[in-house]
């Protein structure tokens, strides 16, 4: 593993976005930051700002109003970046299948790299999901591909 890959593995800055979830998974994400789970051990920091983040943790089935927000946040993140859909409803819409305002999962709006199961996803599972995602992140190219558009212009 080269240095950059190692650094990416060890410094995941997180942006958490609640895309219409029930809060169940959100508070579990928050729990991950707190002493018992403490993901800062892995260098993870909840930066709360897409421009600083490497990892987007999304919860919730995505609804018609926050869809645009989710897309915008994703676009504002610099490459390389990964998206982790936390919880059943972020993965597939879950229990909100009959809800008229739901899009039925994050992957309907932006590409998802890791799906974390659970309703609510348990902190341990979230950590595993994060680590799984980081393995993917580390392998992403360090230089933007020739001709590839920068973050904004894509999508």
């Amino acid at each position, binding site marked *: 593993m080269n240095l950059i890959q190692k650094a990416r593995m060890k410094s995941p800055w997180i942006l958490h976005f609640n895309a219409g979830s029930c809060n169940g998974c959100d508070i579990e994400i928050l729990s991950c930051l707190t*002493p*018992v*789970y*403490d993901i800062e*051990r892995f260098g993870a920091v909840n930066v709360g700002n897409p421009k600083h983040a490497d990892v987007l943790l999304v919860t919730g089935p995505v609804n018609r109003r926050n869809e645009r927000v989710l897309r915008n946040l994703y676009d504002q993140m610099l490459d390389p970046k990964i998206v*982790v859909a936390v919880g*059943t409803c972020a*993965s*597939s*819409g*879950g*229990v909100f*299948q009959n809800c008229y305002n739901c899009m039925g999962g994050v992957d309907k709006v932006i590409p998802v*790299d*890791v*799906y*974390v*199961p*659970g*309703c609510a996803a*348990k902190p*341990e*599972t979230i*950590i*595993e*999901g994060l*680590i*799984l995602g980081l393995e*993917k992140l580390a392998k992403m190219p360090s230089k933007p591909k020739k001709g590839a558009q920068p973050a904004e212009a894509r999508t």
Partner: protein
Amino acid sequence: MARMLRSVLHNAFSKPATRPFPEAPRAAFEKARGLVTFDCTDCRFCGACALKCPTGAIRVVREERKILFEPFKCIVCGACLEACRFGSVQMGPERRKPVYEKPVEVYTKPEADKPATPQDRNE
């Protein structure tokens, strides 16, 4: 501020509350609701589980005697478990693991020689 000072100093000189995860995962609670699996040995493919499932995670294809299960739709509520009169739905305390791609698990009645394992079918 003084009281808080006591707390933080106490913390500084005692073992951190952090659990050693993932190095040494804690055992799951005995009654935890975790992994939903099917054992089709006695399954009649009656569809009761699918009917009760609030998320539509289960699809029973009667004709093909198959159960299609989408674990990433499942909210681990246990309704299917309660609905099945044949004990074909199981729920274990272990957590399901995160994945890169959402699988669809296909369960069929085990033939005598093949074990009853799910076949992952990725969409």
